[in-house]
């Protein structure tokens, strides 16, 4: 009897695999969007994607990784649309023929957060580079993404303008987490460190602990998001029509309104600026 | 349901699977420069029980494994009915070890397993396994898990399992060592009964009394070499060699 019982269990399991493998929603069209954690973790996609899916019938599957990783994945053809925030890398992507055309989509801004005690004395400053210089000077702990993401690239540019190479102090007061924005903020929160973060992720972040915004409002902290259709001439499987429909909708009045209307704790996180 | 394409007779035995005589010629097995079996000759060419006797380390168990086709000799040849042993005929040469190896299933399933490997069709296995158990007086163990039986029961079951496919030759390696008198008697009865059917039996034993009870012939083995089999009477009363005489008198040391 045991044998029969075992084979029944096994048969049930194998059946469940077959059901799993079967394309359960074969009739539904979907596109894959390579994007960043900031758009996902802030809840923006949860707000706007249902609206698009309802009007178009196209399901959007978001893979949320760092900008560097997202661009690499898209360069392998593993996605139909790229939605990230690192303008020069995006332009290079199009120039190499991997993408069709880059469109401005929306922006938010970066902020420098740090412990409320403010050991570097930068609270209220409006020059981000000067603030970083003071962090370096005081040897206050700074948590960096260190993962080639859009945020990391922005941070490196700011250090450069401050005339400081923090990599020399890596492991000392400069900590490269090599992970996403959330993990880096968790680190900063636990260690009382400063960090550069996009405002959307910061607002949605639930483990702030002692951290507060120290520096904001610098024009250089402007964070532009772009959207690109992966080149169907390069990758035949790219769902060009559906992908383009998504991009067109994002840039339409309806899409731009959806982006602008997303609020968290009464604050608008993303500002549509498609032309 | 036909099992693995083997040709079957109406009784379910393997057709044309002839293994007699079981024969070892000029067998040599050497390990680390020592000849454990040294130019040994032994043939099961007559019906009845042939006992293989000799001191520990004489190479008796090794010779038995050679004849069973489990080990290949370094020199010489084992033949079954004139050809080299092969897997398809293995069930025609029954084998019982000094320590029984029971499968983790019931007594009946252990016997049925041997029948399955021997190519007996599924439809016949259950009845034939029950018959085999009954012939050994083990019906009551049919549903018992084999691994928890007593040593004596396991060994009787092992013998019944070896007999179930109706082998032409049966090789027994000290089957009653460490068993109580009752189990020993039951096993000896089965051996005698099988021998009467014409089965060729080779019995490795240390026990002169057992050899006297069961053996038609006795071959003496010492230091890897086998003396020609002689009748039990001759062996005990007028041994051919000084070493055999010393062994019987309990004076032989290796």
């Amino acid at each position: 009897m045991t044998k029969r019982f075992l084979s029944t269990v096994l048969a049930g399991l194998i059946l469940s695999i077959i059901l799993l493998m079967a394309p359960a929603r074969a009739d539904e069209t979907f596109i894959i969007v390579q994007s960043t954690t900031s758009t996902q973790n802030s809840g923006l996609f949860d707000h706007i994607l249902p609206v698009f899916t309802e009007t178009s019938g196209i399901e959007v599957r978001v893979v949320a990784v760092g900008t560097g990783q997202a661009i690499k994945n898209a360069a392998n053809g593993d996605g139909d649309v790229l939605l990230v925030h690192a303008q020069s890398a995006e332009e290079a992507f199009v120039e190499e023929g991997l993408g069709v055309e880059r469109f401005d989509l929306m922006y938010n801004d970066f902020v420098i957060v740090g412990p409320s005690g403010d050991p570097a004395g930068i609270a209220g400053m409006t020059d981000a580079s000067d603030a970083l210089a003071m962090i370096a000077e005081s040897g206050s702990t700074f948590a960096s993404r260190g993962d080639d993401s859009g945020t990391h690239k922005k941070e490196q540019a700011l250090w450069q303008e401050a005339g400081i190479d923090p990599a020399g102090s890596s492991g000392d007061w400069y900590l490269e987490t090599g992970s996403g924005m959330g993990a880096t903020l968790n680190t900063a929160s636990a260690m009382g460190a400063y960090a550069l973060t996009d405002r959307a992720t910061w607002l949605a972040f639930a483990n702030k602990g002692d951290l507060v915004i120290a520096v904001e409002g610098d024009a250089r902290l402007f964070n532009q998001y772009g959207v690109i259709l992966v080149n169907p001439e390069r990758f035949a499987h790219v769902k060009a029509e559906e992908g383009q429909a998504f991009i067109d909708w994002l840039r339409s009045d309806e899409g731009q309104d959806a982006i602008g209307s997303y609020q968290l704790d009464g604050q608008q996180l993303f500002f549509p600026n498609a032309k | 349901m036909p099992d693995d394409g083997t040709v079957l007779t109406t009784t379910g035995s393997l057709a044309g699977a002839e293994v007699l005589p079981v024969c070892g010629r000029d067998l040599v097995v050497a390990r680390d420069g020592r000849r454990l079996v040294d130019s040994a000759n032994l043939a099961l060419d007559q019906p009845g029980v042939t006992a293989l006797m000799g001191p520990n380390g004489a190479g008796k168990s090794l010779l038995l494994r050679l004849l069973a086709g489990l080990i290949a000799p370094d020199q010489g040849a084992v033949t079954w009915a004139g050809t080299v042993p092969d897997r398809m005929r293995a069930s025609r040469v029954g084998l019982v070890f000094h320590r029984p190896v029971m499968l983790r299933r019931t007594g009946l399933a252990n016997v049925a397993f041997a029948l399955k490997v021997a190519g007996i069709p599924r439809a016949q296995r259950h009845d034939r396994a029950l018959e085999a158990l009954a012939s050994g007086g083990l019906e009551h163990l049919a549903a018992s898990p084999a691994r928890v039986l007593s040593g004596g029961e396991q060994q009787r079951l092992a013998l019944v399992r070896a007999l179930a496919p109706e082998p032409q030759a049966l090789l027994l390696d000290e089957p009653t060592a460490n068993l109580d008198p009752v189990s020993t008697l039951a096993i000896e009865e089965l051996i005698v009964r099988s021998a009467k059917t014409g089965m060729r039996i080779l019995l490795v034993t240390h026990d002169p009394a057992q050899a006297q009870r069961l053996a038609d012939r006795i071959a003496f083995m010492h230091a890897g070499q086998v003396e020609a089999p002689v009748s039990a009477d001759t062996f005990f009363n007028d041994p051919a060699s000084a070493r055999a005489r010393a062994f019987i008198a309990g004076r032989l040391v290796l």
Partner: protein
Amino acid sequence: MDDLSGAFAQAFRLIVGFDPDLLEIVVLSLQVSLSAVILAGLIGLPAGAAVSVTRFPGRAVVIAVMNAMMGLPPVVAGLAVYLMLSRAGPLGDWGLLYTPSAMVIAQTVLVAPIIAALTRQAIEDLHGDYDEQLRAFGIGRSGMIATLLWEARVGLFTVLLAGFGRAVSEVGAVIMVGGNIDHVTRVMTTAIALETSKGALDLALGLGIVLLVIVLGVNALAGLLRMGVAGRAHA
């Protein structure tokens, strides 16, 4: 600690509330990991048994590699499978990346060596005891492997459970090849990783407790099943 009691409260709320999103994630986790364990078992059990009953040149190397593969980091397994399934990879045309199938493949790659290596160890001991008797019956190589696997079934059940534990608890491989897409490839571990990155630590820990409860439940079920098997075998 506040975080910890918050986590238990969250876990309780998640389980009692029977959130449909959570249910979907749990079901997918079980489907993916059980599928992977079955596939890995179909590969690893015979492979491990075959290595233990066969002698061939280079066998020691094969065993060493199998044992080393037990420590394969999930991220490496995930990366290897990503490179195979990526559109730029050799199997890109199958379009499996970012599907549950890809996750099953990655976990199979991760678990099959574990099952193979542990099976080899279990069968090798048994083989020493059974080899001569089984060959005396006239059994062939494949019959020998099948018989030894069945004889070792009680121990191998534990091996499969160990494989399941490894599969269901890893995150590095599934997040890379699955993409953690909501309602498509989000499983327990990737959901935990996501909530952690959002700083929602109590929710993440709550999900972790749910995962633990599910793994416990699967083990308890397997224990009952095994007791049934062992009861029949009595050894």
